[in-house]
């Protein structure tokens, strides 16, 4: 095939023109020449407002039944740590400071208006009828049983944890949780500017992943590392989850159920221990206190 010089040049110019036009296309995946947007401090009142909105979504408290004092985690019979909490409903006046502290500590995102209309809030700690409800960290956890990938897994410290990079979003755990304490990331909150990284120690969860109360695992790990540097054996002391730290009435007591000198065990002695009826048979580690035993 013979090409004249004129047509060769024409072809060449045409190709270059086409290529440069192709280079001008709009492409989302190409890096944008924009400065990183460091917005001003997010207004905490937005988070507060959403908590108040969510209060109306769940106006009824969970019905409680009396349970024995939480003890050894069935999967770790030799462990001497079973972390848990007791929420004193006699002291709680449902001010909602725990819910806000939880969202700020764990970078829990807000949801957009559409999601809010469907009631798909992400709150790890909800105020159901004024009662703070979060994952109960069951010993015999229904969510851990059905998770296919092992993303929902029991921690040797006796609580229920989540491995976010392992989660593929089958949502079986959420379907199986009678307390509905698990939240699914329906949207990418960071993309919509609804998430804020208050706490650099906690990753933001991507879209399509389940999440729930982690008992502020980042604080627990820091306390453990600190104890280890001093050569001490950490048994769950010297640390508080965000909700417990924020409670002005000290109604949320955190500690180790297996340590008889811990705050938790001492303060729950002689009190009536209750758990939500739906999960009472799964050996919850987060329980409620009410009246005397």
């Amino acid at each position, binding site marked *: 095939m013979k090409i004249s010089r004129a047509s060769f040049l024409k072809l060449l110019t045409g190709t270059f023109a086409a290529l440069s036009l192709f280079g001008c296309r709009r492409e989302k995946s190409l890096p944008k020449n924009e400065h*990183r*947007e*460091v*917005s001003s*401090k*997010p207004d*905490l009142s937005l988070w507060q407002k959403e908590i108040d909105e969510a209060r109306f979504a769940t106006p009824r408290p969970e019905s409680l039944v009396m349970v024995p004092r939480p003890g050894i985690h069935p*999967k770790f019979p030799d462990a001497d740590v079973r972390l848990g909490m007791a929420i004193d409903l006699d002291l709680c006046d449902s001010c909602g400071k725990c819910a806000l*502290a939880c969202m*700020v500590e764990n970078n829990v995102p807000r949801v957009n208006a559409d*999601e809010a209309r*469907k*009631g*798909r*809030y992400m709150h790890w700690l909800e105020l159901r009828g004024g009662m703070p409800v979060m994952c109960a960290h069951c010993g015999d956890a*229904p969510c*851990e*049983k*059905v*998770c*296919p*990938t*092992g993303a929902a897994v029991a921690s040797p410290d006796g609580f229920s944890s989540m491995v*976010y*990079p*392992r*989660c*593929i*979003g*089958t*949502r*079986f755990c*959420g*379907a*199986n949780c*009678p307390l*509905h304490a698990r*939240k*699914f*990331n*329906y*949207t990418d909150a*960071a*993309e919509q*500017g609804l*998430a*804020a*990284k*208050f706490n*650099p120690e906690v*990753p*933001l969860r*991507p*879209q*399509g*992943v*389940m999440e729930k109360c982690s008992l502020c695992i980042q604080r627990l790990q820091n306390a453990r590392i600190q104890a280890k540097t001093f050569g001490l054996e950490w048994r769950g002391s010297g640390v508080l989850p965000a909700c417990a730290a*924020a409670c002005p009435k000290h109604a949320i007591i955190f500690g180790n159920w297996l340590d008889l000198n811990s705050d938790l065990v001492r303060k729950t002695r002689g009190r009536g221990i209750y758990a939500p009826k739906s999960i009472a048979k799964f050996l919850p580690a987060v329980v409620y206190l009410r009246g005397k035993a």
Partner: protein
Amino acid sequence: MNRNFLIFGLVLLLPSLFAVDSALSIGPASWALSQESFWGTPIADFVFWIGLAHAGTLFSAILLVLGVRWQHRVAFLAELSTIAALGVAASFPLIHLGIPEAFYNMIPVGNARSMYVNVESPLVWDFVAIFVYGTVSVLYLLLHLFSIRNASLEKYRRPFAWILFPLVLWVHTIVSLDFAVTFVPGWQGAYFPLYFIFGALFSGVALVQILVELSHRRVRAVEDLLIAFSWALLAFWMWEANVKAVWHPELLIFGFLVPQLLWISKVREISVVRALVAISVMASLWWERIGLVQPENLDWTWVDLGLASFGIGAFCVAFALLRILLKKFFPQAFDEDVMESLRERVVSFERKKFWISVGVGTFAAGAFAVYFIWNAPAFPGVRMIPVLFPIGALCAGISLSLFAIAELWKTRVAVMCAVLLAVFAVAVGGLLYRGTDVSYTESLTTVESVNPALGTSKQATAELWNARCAACHGKDGNLNRKFVHEFYPLPQTLSLERLDSLGLDSLSKVVLEGRNYMRPFRGRVTDAEAFALVRYMRSLAVQKKGGAVP
């Protein structure tokens, strides 16, 4: 028939691809779900289509094993519909996932990070069972096709059917366990496996009925089966109403009363009525699955409907394409006379090779059990049993196919196939074992922010002040005059009035960015700490003035 099927399928499929696209790009937010009921229409569609697939196997394998005479008349249609329906069914769980591209995390092999799937989970059972069912069904169809040309393969069909027969029941039992092992009140019941199997076969029989009508034939036994199953399902619906007070009158009308029309012989003779009855049965069973998966009344979006239409469209297109392909390569299969003459063939049962294959399957299942219990002892071994049978069935089916290949061509070809298969399996296993490089980076648009309301504790702030600031500003907020005099011009006194007039924001900015002789502290203190330091500084100024710390 093929052309009409294809056109009808495309009309439904092409628009519904938009729904699939938005389901995949927007994710589960695009269809009706809530933060309490996490399973929606894709799961219902999955259960529906997998049920339809089972009927194909019922007609091709189970009836063959049981020696039913009219089986060969519907076997081909049924086998093809199995493959098409299974393909459609398998796509729905993938759409359902939050992160569809990560589905491989469910494959039960280990990886370099010692992460094992949770064999306790019904979803792992489900994943394995459906994969195996699909593979074995394809092998069975191929065997059937090749046996038309080559009579010597006929003797492998019955052994293969014996593998497929229990597998079908196993698969649908597992699908029912997806629901029955949970703690959702409406999904509990020991009768679920039977209920699901009967429901699946009922809808599947209806599908075969439609396909038979469309190919202008008539198989009375299929119509009889339709009536029989409608009574079986009535029993289950009555049981549900009794035990759970779940009551769906529309199911009783369209699922039970309408099939009873077939008792009237005048009506039964009309082909359109027979097809309509079958359609009514299928629609009512689809609606039943929807009601089961999603008891909560949620607002459907257009994606819910689009996915349902995708199922029907994809099935029709796949079915028509499969038939067109077969017509090209195996024209005999569509010749009634050839098929009728094939029936007269003497059929023997390859007893020895069947048992060898069963042995291979048993060994494979045992090896898997040992491998898993050895590596992941945390999971209860008993709960692994549901995946062991499908794994055994897969290996038995493959080994039986290898025998068939050896018979069809040469032993050498079969050995080659076995080696290639092993290499492929090892390669896939190795890839899964290595895993991908997980980068858990966060988007740059994330707002990094401080929370002045919480900040750090006063104790920590005081320590920070003493460490970072006291060298110049002094522990008590008065200047460390000795040091400052020597090196710097004297700074402003930080009185309470001055601090208040400057404000928290600008002062914390001074801490972070620096000013005049003060060095920037960004990177050494966080935004939150800067705020806390300014507040601490103010409290020092208050103390100095003699007031109480607010």
